[in-house]
């Protein structure tokens, strides 16, 4: 299924790649992309501060997302979504089974922890390679079909992976309880147990991933976590590579696949290896995400391969803006934020917030808000999906563009660009 080409009624200038010739490229990026990259780098670097805007003991601290687990999830799912977008955003091939690659990557990672040792690099390498191998096989078969038929093939493969991992493959995958470490694992290049007799934790050259420094500034508190910064660094590399890929001839070919396969074939190009290449690259991104997930939290559950997990990354990508560079990362962030923050708001928290209201009114307001938070967080998520797609057809990125256009218009009409903002 590709996005249908929407032909605009009037001729309009391009929305992409205004720089067709390199001018003052740094790091191999055009100035505009470099700006975006530095912006994202800045955000990830400062995330522990930006995500904890409320004082630690204020009632709004519930909205703080700057704790290690969630920050790690933001960037890990960001990687997953960036990779998915390389396939879906560029070629238009909608895979409904990408979670399988994340899953096998996770299993490979945990097995490395069990067999080799607790250093994260071999685990991540194994994750990426295993996911890559799986995606070569699944991609080779699935890409024989296109459109919805392709989607269903990938879905079928992933569902098979999930069903088998949950049941008959339990000796390899841990099944229902997930694959986890135990004290009796061999770990040939490391200790089976830590000095205190516990299972050792993942580390990078001896630095534990969970090591955290709490920084207190007045009423605020910020967690600086080794694992997060490691993930963030990996994500920046992944993001950088994705930008390069988007701007490369290969990326252009992928967009050409999406736009018109017939023309591509009659231009002397074979679409199949291009799409397979994109499929494998995005599968490896998923594997990387899986490897990082177990490096942060060394347990791999089969549910992360279920179709709902594959659907989640589809939703992240579309929500953020398919085919844009930053969109998938935004989408991943928003969905994970809802999952982790909104689900934890319970009635007692609500009463805490609205305590300043008179009793009757307080109960009334709590009753109104109640269905949308805590156990109702799915409802809010569903409503948000609908709102975004109805009002912002291009996803959150379009929302950002509209805002910035509005801002520019206000700040000075002379700077108003006739160009659509590039698809970032």
């Amino acid at each position, binding site marked *: 299924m590709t996005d249908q080409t929407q032909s605009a009624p009037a001729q309009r200038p391009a929305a992409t790649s205004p720089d067709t010739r390199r001018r003052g490229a740094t790091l191999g990026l055009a100035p505009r992309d470099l700006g975006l990259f530095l912006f994202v780098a800045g955000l990830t670097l400062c995330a522990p501060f930006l995500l904890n805007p409320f004082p630690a003991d204020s009632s709004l601290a519930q909205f703080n997302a700057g704790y290690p687990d969630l920050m790690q999830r933001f960037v890990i799912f960001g990687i997953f979504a960036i990779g998915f977008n390389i396939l879906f955003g560029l070629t238009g091939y909608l895979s409904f089974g990408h979670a399988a690659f994340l899953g096998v990557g996770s299993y490979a990672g945990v097995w490395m922890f069990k067999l080799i040792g607790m250093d994260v690099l071999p685990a991540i390498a194994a994750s990426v390679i295993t996911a890559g191998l799986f995606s070569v096989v699944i991609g080779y078969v699935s890409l024989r079909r296109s459109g*919805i038929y392709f989607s*269903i093939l990938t879905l079928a493969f992933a*569902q098979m992976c999930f069903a088998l991992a949950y049941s008959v493959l339990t000796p390899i995958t841990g099944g229902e309880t997930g694959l986890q470490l135990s004290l009796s694992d061999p770990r040939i290049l490391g200790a089976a147990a830590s000095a205190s007799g516990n299972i050792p934790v993942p580390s990078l050259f001896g630095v534990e991933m969970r090591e955290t420094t709490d920084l207190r500034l007045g009423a605020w508190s910020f967690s600086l976590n080794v694992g997060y910064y490691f993930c963030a660094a990996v994500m920046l590399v992944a993001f950088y590579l994705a930008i390069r890929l988007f701007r490369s001839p290969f990326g252009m070919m992928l967009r050409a696949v999406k736009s018109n396969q017939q023309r591509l074939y009659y231009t002397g190009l074979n679409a199949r290896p291009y799409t397979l290449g994109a499929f494998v690259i995005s599968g490896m991104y998923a594997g990387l995400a899986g490897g990082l997930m177990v490096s942060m939290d060394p347990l791999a559950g089969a549910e992360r391969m279920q179709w709902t997990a594959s659907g989640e990354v589809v939703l992240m990508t579309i929500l953020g803006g398919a085919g844009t560079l930053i969109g998938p990362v935004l989408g991943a962030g928003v969905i994970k934020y809802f999952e982790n923050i909104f689900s934890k708001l319970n009635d007692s928290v609500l009463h805490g917030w609205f305590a300043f209201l008179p009793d009757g009114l307080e109960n009334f307001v709590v009753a109104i808000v109640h269905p949308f938070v805590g156990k109702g967080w799915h409802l809010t998520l569903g409503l948000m999906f*609908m709102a975004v797609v109805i009002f912002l057809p291009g996803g959150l990125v379009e929302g950002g563009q509209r805002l910035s256009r509005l801002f520019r218009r206000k700040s000075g009409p002379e700077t108003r660009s006739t160009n659509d903002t590039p698809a970032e």
Partner: protein
Amino acid sequence: MDAIILQILNGLDKGSAYALIALGLTLIFGTLGVVNFAHGALFMIGAFCAVTLSRLIESSRTVIDESRTDFLGNPMEVQVPYVVDWFGESGGAFLIDWAVPLSILFAIPIMITIGWIMERGLIKHFYKRPHADQILVTFGLAIVLQEIIKYFYGANPIPTPAPSAFQGSFDFGVLLGFDPLTILYPYWRLVYFAFAALIIGGVFAFLQFTTFGMVVRAGMADRETVGLLGINIDRRFTIMFGIAAAVAGLAGVMYTPINPPNYHMGMDFLVLSFVVVVVGGMGSLPGAVLAGFLLGILESFASMREVIDLIPGINQVIIYLVAILILLTRPRGLMGRKGVMEE
């Protein structure tokens, strides 16, 4: 032999549920080109129509029975259904007993209305949008519908038994000359199969023999041309959407005695119904029905002990395995048309 016949019956029964859902889905998905992730939710809402009607019929006034006490030691509150007041003990009991079949009448207008509102209010604006947007909006809608049901009915399954006349099993084997008690099959499942056959036949007859149906079929084949002829195909598609919703809803109503409905039953069927539709071939109604029955029967055979012993885990993956094999040997599924949702 009897085991095989039993599994064929099971397969036909499972298949009728798959076929009914896939039929509605393919009307929307294979013909309007809308990826409707909310279709499972329509099935679920149909089931909850039955729940709601049973609850309405059972709605009661409370009487305090001083002679008994509840678990906290307070006087027991006893519920007396209004229908018992109105129609007497036996009449009321009869209504309560027959709540599920009665819900069919109740569900049809509701489902058509829901389908109509969905199409006019939401889906209409998404015909020209990318499939990705359709997925996002219908998935969002499915979650919202699901959560609304959960809010009012809870997450637990809700027992909605079949009328007592249809409880118990029919000795199917005797008809085929087997010994008594070898092939027993529940009455309600046979009813479900017959009902599915009726609905499927009805939809086909409707499309085949009415002018309305002819226009819609022509519109499926070539929407623009029919539009050029000055026929208001949009309005007819709206009606089709209503019919698809009604088919899904009725499938849900009749399914409630088979398995107690819960708020996520739609999601459980969603993936499967997409697989069925695609295996059947995009844009083909007979394909969807055929694939529904085929997958139902294969699933039943794969769950036989002898088969599982031979290939462990086959019952976990049979549907997907078959889907992959069919799609690789037949590029457009069983009966798919060229160019529908292939891009």
